[in-house]
């Protein structure tokens, strides 16, 4: 199991003062898969991500990423990962392009300009490339944030609550980006508090509750944990999301980066 795993976590524990955040977390993530760590606020998701990305030193347990131990080989781990944190970590004062060039330079890559231009194209940000990030919408910022994480193609990607605070349309854009990542063979560890997000994206889902993984399996396996579904007939009402997308239209969402997304303009 561990040989093939992109991420291997065993007995991970971490306390802040008296408060035990992680009480022995174990899981494995297969290479090239999307693994969702599902949990409510304060369940310890961010602590897991920070431990795996060498930002926090766990009190106990072992963890390896891309075959490197996070405690003894942190430099190699950092070569293998990228972290997209809970809050978009972009430089507000630089332009979108300058942000991408900055990360490419810090990853010591050849030709940072071309890398930046390719990613701007891929994430529909070409038109906004020369604008300061402080003028970007939430969705554009998140897309830039994820684009920055892809630079250098690190084999393992951590996404900590990538869609928290985004509007539904921006959320779909992020989902699209995550799926594309996994198609390119990147291993993705995603944390989320949204059940539908885990359902949409993840190959395996683990539920983190009070510092422990209480279940871990595919969506089908998790569904079998509760009694089989009973057939009921109910009237299918459109959800508010259906209404929203019917009104604003969800096509061409990558081509028009600067579009105003407020509901008020749609009627």
């Amino acid at each position, binding site marked *: 199991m561990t040989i093939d795993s992109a991420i291997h976590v065993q007995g991970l524990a971490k306390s802040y003062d008296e408060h035990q955040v992680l009480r022995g977390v174990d899981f494995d993530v297969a290479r090239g898969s999307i693994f969702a760590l599902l949990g409510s606020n304060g369940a310890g998701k961010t602590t897991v991500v920070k431990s795996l*990305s060498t*930002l926090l030193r766990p009190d106990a347990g072992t963890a390896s990423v891309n075959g490197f131990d996070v405690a003894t080989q942190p430099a190699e781990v950092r070569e293998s*990962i990228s972290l997209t944190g809970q809050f978009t970590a972009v430089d507000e004062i630089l332009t979108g392009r*300058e942000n991408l060039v900055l*990360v490419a330079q*810090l990853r*010591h890559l050849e030709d940072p300009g071309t890398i930046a231009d390719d990613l701007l194209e891929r994430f529909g940000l070409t038109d906004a490339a020369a604008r300061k990030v402080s003028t970007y919408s939430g969705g554009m910022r998140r897309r830039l944030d994820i684009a920055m994480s892809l630079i250098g193609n690190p084999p393992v990607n951590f996404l900590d609550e990538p869609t928290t605070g985004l509007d539904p349309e921006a959320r779909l854009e992020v989902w699209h980006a995550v799926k594309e990542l996994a198609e390119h063979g990147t291993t993705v560890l995603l944390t989320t508090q949204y059940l539908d997000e885990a359902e949409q994206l993840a190959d395996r889902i683990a539920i983190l509750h009070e510092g422990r993984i209480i279940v871990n399996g595919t969506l089908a396996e998790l569904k079998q944990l509760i009694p089989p579904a009973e057939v009921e007939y109910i009237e299918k009402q459109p959800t508010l999301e259906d209404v929203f997308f019917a009104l604003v239209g969800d096509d061409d969402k990558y081509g028009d980066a600067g579009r105003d997304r407020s509901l008020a303009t749609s009627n």
Partner: protein
Amino acid sequence: MTKNFFGDTAVLLKRSLRHIARSPDTIITTAIMPIAMLLLFVYVFGGAINTGSDSYVDYLLPGILLITIASGISYTAFRLFTDKQSGIFERFQSMPIARSSVLWAHVLTSLVANLISVVLVVLVALLMGFRSGAGVLAWLGVAGILGLFTLALTWVAVIPGLTAKSTDGASAFSYPLIFLPFISSAFVPTDTMPGPVRAFAENQPVTSIVQAIRDLFTQQPVGTGIWTALAWCAGILVVAYAFAMATYRRRTS
């Protein structure tokens, strides 16, 4: 790790310098308060202050330059705090870069920003009649002392930048530093101060640093005073650097 230190620091330094270039108000506001004090003390209070020197602006400038630096470094704490707050700090930390380059880039930016502010203040002082017969070596000496003083205070500023919980907290620490020159020989000779105040004024770092710069400007022999000044700067630098690095390591483990 160290093989990338200079390259990574250069890349991050370029980033912070862009920040300054795009918000020049941080440099202008740094220079405005000391310039206002210079005007106030030379044209309002100065006539009533007997310093024993011909020109009060010549007497005052060294202290004003220290005040400029003390207020300038609060922007270093502010910029560091903003990076930490926005998450970009963690992004850098999770990347394969030399970790200390993140701090060094901010420190070098502080040197550049303060240099510009100091030059602005000196230009205004020249317009107000400041004159010095100092040669190139003496000016280099002044630049060296000011550079060392900036470096020392910048490392002091790194500590609140890393630990503060709010923007106000990150920059508030500099207020006492700005007022320290008032209780020194920067504005008035210490002779008229009452005993304990005088003892404090004569033995705190600002007095020896101001005196050393003044001696260099007026082509006086600097004597052993300059060593006291350099020792203060170096001492503050070493202690602040050690505390800042310890804080940095604690924050990132």
